[in-house]
């Protein structure tokens, strides 16, 4: 199984929001809905403060509770990878997957009603391109690739730098990493 991961350097991210705009443009995400978002986390007490910017999205978990909770098989892994997609033709809009996602990363498409989410831009990955957010990033803080290939950029970054994932304690095995 190919395992794709996104590695985001919180030290070079400036929270500009270009990844969010790129995603909306690439995927025609309707106004008011977002597949990715940015969190600015400030730690400490004035004047000793540190700030971390995180571009967040679906974590394309290796143990995705949303996939297991789906009653129709609409939520599925794309071609045996860890990329989690929703098939609108199978989705009833029951919202079990929204309840099942500990990252609250899913949304209801308006006005259609099926459930939507980040796709890691699988239509670009398919032709060897990076997801839109990654290829747009002006500070080059976002990286994408196969984590099961030891010599890929993402694997090397994770070997050489300290990193973290969000809520690994949920057991979902997320695949978006943050370099800290």
């Amino acid at each position, binding site marked *: 199984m190919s395992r794709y991961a996104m590695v985001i350097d919180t030290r070079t991210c400036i*929270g500009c*929001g270009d990844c*969010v705009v790129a995603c909306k443009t690439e995927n025609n995400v309707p106004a*008011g*809905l*977002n*597949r*990715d*978002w*940015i*969190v*600015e*986390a*400030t*730690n*400490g*007490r004035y004047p000793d403060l540190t700030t971390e*910017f995180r571009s*967040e999205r679906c974590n394309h978990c290796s143990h995705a*509770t949303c996939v*297991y*909770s*789906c*009653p*129709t*098989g*609409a939520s599925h892994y794309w071609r045996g990878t860890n990329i989690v997609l929703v098939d*609108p*033709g*199978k*989705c*009833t*809009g*029951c*919202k*079990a997957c*929204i*309840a*099942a*996602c*500990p*990252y*609250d990363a899913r*949304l*209801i498409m308006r006005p*259609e*009603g*099926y*459930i939507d989410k980040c796709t890691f831009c699988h239509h670009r990955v398919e032709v060897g391109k990076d997801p839109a957010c990654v290829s747009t990033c002006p500070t080059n803080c976002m990286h994408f690739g196969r984590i099961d290939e030891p010599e890929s950029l993402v694997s090397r970054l994770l070997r050489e730098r300290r990193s973290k994932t969000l*809520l690994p304690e*949920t*057991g979902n095995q997320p695949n978006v990493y943050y370099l800290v």
Partner: protein
Amino acid sequence: MVEELLITARANPKIDPSLGIWSWEIPVYLFFGGLTAGILFFSAWMILRNRDEETPFAASRYAIWAPIVLSIGMTTLFLDLEHKLYVFRFYTTLQPLSPMSWGSWVLLIIYPLAILLTLATLRKGYPMLAGLLEKLPFGSLALDLSERFKRPIAIWTIPFAIALGIYTGILLSAFSARPFWNSGVLGPLFLVSGLSSAAALAVLLAKQHGERLQFARIDLGLIAVELLLVGLLIINLHTGSGPQVQAVQQILGGPYTQLFWLGFVLVGLLIPLMLGWLEIRNLNPVVFLGPLLVLIGGYLLRQLTVDLGQVSTWTNYASQFNPQLLELLP
């Protein structure tokens, strides 16, 4: 101190309340689904035990309520779907790891069982309705066949009624992402609550004093078990992981405290328990109050559980922003 700010918008129910997962439709379905399970369980049970004399209502007049109540529940369930035209997709697959998939198949089986059990008891319970049905083509045949296979129908009804009563609780408890739901107690709690609601409805609808008394007695036991399960749920969550401890605080001093303890526990369980106890001693002046409160309590349990699960989450952005500070600006 940690402060986390969202500097771009996101589609999230906590930011956009219109995206809340489940509103009133699902609690209504959970309540009526549980009630149907109880109705079918008691009618099938009384049929199998040949209690036509002692409990004539349950044995021959109660089953017809099951398809009616289930239809209301399934209507609200359908109303909740966001992508309604694709509802048939529930029945093009069976997803073994999804309790909702199992539940949708249970519904498909329980519905005809409820209708067959109704047909099998129609001539005895509602002769006028049976007369009308006999005028339709194949009406008599349907009644004859259902009556002939009354016992096998009742035998099959029991396990599927239990499945219908328990699966909704299992469904919610399987969501590890919602700490308040993530407890195995929820399945049995919903099952017992559904049986208790059905016993209460039988007290309200049965005409014979002896039968009412018998169901009041049954309900007394069920309410006691339900109280025990509610206690176990709270212990389970209170001694659980961090997010679970945080989730249960919602009813231990948090915003849901009053509704949970005064509405559900006191009005929905303790007062009916007391009234039921008086009833079986023939001391209860208001016979219908207790069962009515049980039904209200049964609904409140579903609404509270669904709401509490949705406000409990792993993703809590540590926002320290105080909007009142804005008022200090010139």
